[in-house]
């Protein structure tokens, strides 16, 4: 009997528990009653848009311009950034050596440039491009492996060739520059003779040095970008019943990373005339409530958050939940001739203004690029925005006075291969005020 009772008990207990599992799984029904009885003061989200963001322009006299793989040539007179001249210095390597046919006859030599669609300035005017041969090889200064925007190398007084034409940057039609046949025949003969100076890249560079591609004396009204397929081509033909055209290509060489662009500016008479000569940082207050971006000519905007720690003084402050930085181009400077940088990284920096790492995207991999929104009609909503949540969450913890901030720079290759420029308004600029929106968790406990 005792045994039975225990078994019975187990059996009945099962009966008791089973329905519990069968009935589980439904959701708690929501009934809209009770809002009057809850205390909302425990926690809330507060938006603060009155914290100051300090804007300044960091100017660097020297910017590294080697290694961009883009050939910048031209001149543009910008009413803000001044007159800028770009020249490109590059090396070529020779075609593979082969014995030419005995019936071969030299014809001509041209330099072929292919536009990479980037430009800065007025592309509707005629351009004159001149090609010079370097008199000295492109050698790095001691203990350096880079060239800067102000680096220069001497060239022959007379150009190897010039051309005057209309360049269409949006088409990729090649720009052809007829070069001196004296130089062309000289190279052809060396090749034909199998001369040691043309047998390999190093010997050819020692002999030929390289080229400078520059605006011609008649000037240009824009700076154009060309890709790294620069080719010096010698045409020849084989004598016969039908002339067959042949070619020898001396192609772009950058194995030693020595290609660079010289970029020189004359800012006299512009709002930026104070910049030049030495590195400096100038507050937006001193420059018409604006900060300037054109990395290749030395201009980088910096944003600092000097009053972020005032949040800690609020009794209800718990934590920054979200912080958004919205940057707008200052409307008083906008011009259609100069495209806005499509992508802008925000690099962390400190009082030295050295470039740290870009702000990452919070929810995935990669870096924030500013999510440019273009308002083509009114322009007033054109803006870049950054999620500075994690950045400010860290910054607010720093107890000592600091000049930490963010530097806006295009992703590295674009920063030294385009002249995209941007003039940002600070918080007091009516034509494009910077906004800092900080949402924090508040508690009144």
């Amino acid at each position: 009997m005792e045994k039975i009772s225990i078994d019975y008990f187990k059996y009945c207990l099962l009966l008791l528990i089973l329905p519990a599992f069968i009935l589980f799984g439904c959701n708690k029904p929501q009934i809209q009653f009770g809002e009057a009885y809850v205390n909302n003061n425990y926690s809330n989200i507060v938006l603060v848009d009155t914290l100051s963001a300090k804007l300044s322009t960091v100017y660097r006299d020297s910017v590294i311009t080697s290694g961009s793989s883009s050939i910048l040539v031209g001149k543009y007179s910008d009413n803000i950034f001044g007159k800028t001249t770009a020249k490109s210095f590059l090396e070529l390597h020779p075609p593979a050596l082969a014995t030419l046919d005995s019936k071969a006859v030299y014809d001509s030599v041209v330099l072929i440039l292919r536009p990479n669609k980037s430009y800065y300035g007025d592309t509707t005017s005629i351009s004159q491009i001149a090609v010079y041969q370097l008199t000295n090889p492109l050698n790095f200064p001691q203990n350096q492996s880079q060239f800067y925007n102000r680096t220069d190398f001497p060239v022959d007084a007379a150009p190897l060739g010039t051309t005057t034409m209309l360049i269409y940057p949006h088409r990729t039609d090649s720009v052809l520059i007829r070069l001196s046949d004296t130089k062309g025949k000289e190279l052809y003969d060396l090749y034909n003779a199998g001369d040691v100076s043309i047998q390999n890249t190093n010997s050819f560079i020692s002999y030929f040095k390289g080229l400078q591609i520059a605006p011609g004396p008649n000037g240009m009204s824009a700076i154009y970008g060309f890709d790294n397929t620069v080719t010096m081509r010698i045409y020849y033909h084989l004598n016969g019943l039908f002339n067959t055209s042949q070619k020898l290509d001396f192609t772009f060489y950058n194995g030693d990373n020595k290609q660079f662009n010289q970029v020189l500016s004359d800012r006299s008479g512009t709002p930026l005339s104070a910049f030049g000569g030495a590195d400096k940082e100038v507050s937006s207050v001193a420059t018409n409530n604006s900060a300037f971006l054109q990395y290749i000519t030395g201009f980088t905007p910096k944003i600092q958050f000097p009053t972020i720690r005032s949040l800690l003084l609020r009794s209800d402050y718990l934590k920054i939940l979200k912080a958004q930085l919205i940057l707008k181009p200052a409307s008083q400077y906008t011009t259609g001739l100069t495209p806005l940088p499509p992508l802008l990284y925000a690099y962390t920096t400190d009082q030295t203004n050295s470039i740290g790492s870009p702000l990452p995207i919070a929810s995935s991999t990669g870096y924030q690029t500013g999510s440019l929104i273009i308002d083509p009609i009114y322009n007033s909503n054109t803006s870049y925005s950054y999620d500075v949540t994690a950045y400010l969450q860290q910054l607010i913890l720093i107890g000592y006075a600091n000049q930490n901030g963010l530097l806006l720079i295009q992703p590295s290759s674009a920063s030294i291969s385009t002249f995209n420029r941007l003039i940002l308004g600070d918080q007091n600029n009516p034509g494009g005020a910077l906004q800092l929106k900080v949402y924090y968790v508040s508690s009144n406990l």
Partner: protein
Amino acid sequence: MFPVISNLSFKRLSFIILLILPFYRISVYAQNVTSPYSIIGIGDLEQSYFNRTSGMANTGIAYSNNNFVTINNPASISYLTNQLFLVETAARGKYVKYSGTGVTAGLSAKDFSIEKLTVGMRIKKWWGAAAGLMPYSTSNYTFSGTQSLQGSNLTLPVDYDGSGGVNRFFFANGFKITKNLSIGANASYLGGSLVQRDSLFSTDVTSSIFTTKNIYVSNLYLDYGLQYHMKLSKKWNATLGFTYAPETPLHAQNTAVIKDGKGDTLSNVTLTNTIFTLPNTTGFGISIIKNNRLTFLADYRYQAWSSLNVSGINYRLVNSNRYSAGIEYSKQKEYQGSKFEVSYLQAGAFYNQSYLQISNEQIAERGFTLGAGFNSKRSTLSYHFAFEYGIRGSGITPVKENYANFTIGLSYKDFWNTKGRKYN
């Protein structure tokens, strides 16, 4: 002083209790039956004892039974049968249909949970004792609201979710003073957490904030009872019952934890302790019994909430009154000169004006119950079933609930291994 429990018996009891205990109020994890009014006070006060009186609308201040623990009146415990050790458990399934403003048409909910575990025995001829665990109050609600994002003209959606409740661990003792008079005292520990969780969502900041407010209440709670049995005639007996519990403060420890969407704790604050007072409670009951088979019962329970002056926006706690009546018919068999119960049938009805007054309308409940039970022929098990149908609120209260409860009770009896009568 206590009789020695045999090894076997003790093992078995431990087994039974350990088996049931983990399931006690298991539906804490899936309590679906929300009760919108339970946001106020310490939640809904449990009206059921989950015992043999559940089929009679929990009417039992003047009820006693040899084989069942009824703590409706602790004095009744003195009537337990000698040498029996009782283990009782009960579970309840609930089905509620909601109506009223703010309620989606046809909204309903159901859940099921083990609600009670009791052990009881008679220690001496004049002394019975029982101990157990049962709910005292329950808080369970969910609704959504809005909160303004300060510093902007935006509003944020908030989800509110209430859960938890107060449990009652009791130790009740009943004493026979004279042949007719019994008194009892029940010392309970009331303890539990009332939890409100606010989930603040914001698409604007693509983050959430979770605030959990926890009110942990606890204290000792004492209630007393008295039963007086009278023989009216050869066939008729009567019992008068009286219960009383003095005003008792519940100490409430309030904490609030604020977490963000990542689960980081932003704030963990212990707030000033508060006190939630349980009022003076009195109850009167009468039962009239014919031939020890047919029982008529009536109860009146009263709680003096009004004098505590608890009120808030749009609500007030007011005196509660509960009226109930029940009838029970017990089918018995004679065996070797003793009477044994084979089965029983019950019915009851109640009207309860709850302690809650919202917008000047006291929330009331009314309903009826049916009950049945039988004792196993092959074992010492008893089964108990109670059905309750009720209406809470009315057309003019914000929410009206039509509900059906089904309680299953299980009672297990075992003998003490004491000197005297041996069990073969």
